[in-house]
């Protein structure tokens, strides 16, 4: 999985992912997210436009991120999910606690 991290002018960390998010790739993503959590990044947005597959291992990574960011009062949002990828979040009922946006602009509003 390719992980591209940049920070925009509003001090929001935007992470663009590319590839499958499964049991193989999730440890790498978790490692990158850990660094951001250690630096107490206040706002994170994750772009899933180029992710065509997410399973329970991928969701577990986001649950961990959610719990840790909640602990220090920060926010993260996911955006650009395909219908299929969105379905795993819905089945796990994570759409009720995660900030899931359709577009980058909406995600920015969610974390602002």
């Amino acid at each position, binding site marked *: 999985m390719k992980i591209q991290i940049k920070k925009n002018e509003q001090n929001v960390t935007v992470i663009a992912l590319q590839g499958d998010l*499964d049991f193989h790739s999730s440890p790498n993503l978790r490692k990158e997210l850990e660094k951001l959590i250690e630096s107490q990044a206040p706002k994170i947005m994750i772009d899933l436009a180029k992710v065509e597959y997410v399973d329970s291992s991928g969701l577990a990574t986001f649950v961990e991120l959610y719990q840790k960011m909640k602990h220090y009062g920060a926010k993260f949002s996911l955006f650009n999910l395909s219908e299929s990828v969105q379905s795993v979040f819905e089945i796990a009922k994570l759409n009720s606690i995660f900030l899931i946006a359709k577009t980058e602009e909406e995600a920015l509003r969610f974390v602002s």
Partner: protein
Amino acid sequence: MSRRTFLIESRTENLEPLRKDLAQALGGPGLSEKELYGILVSVVEACTNSIRHAYGNAPDGKIHITVDDRKDRVILKIRDYGKKIDLAKIPSPTLPPVNPGGLGIYFMKTFTDELKYNTRHARGTELTLVKYKNRSPNKEEP
């Protein structure tokens, strides 16, 4: 009707190529894009369980995946030869999950219509998943 068998070793880097091969094998009529995705999630979750729990992340275990694509249903068998999975020890997840993990079997139950474990083999576990074609959208609860 078509029947295909895939064999992978218990290494996590084999999951993505397997998913792609399965998508190609199951790309025919009768399954919506979402249903096909659900099947792929279910098989990869099953293989992930075999890698993690049956083989304890050892990379040289064998996993056979059989895809029986019939007119009215798809029957998938995932067979490993490692430690048997004790279903009684796997708790149902709370939803939404408050802790990471525990969703794999829940996804398999939700995305498919039938799930059966056979632990009567001398070694390992055989999981059978059935998904019927041309049916209503996925159920919300297992």
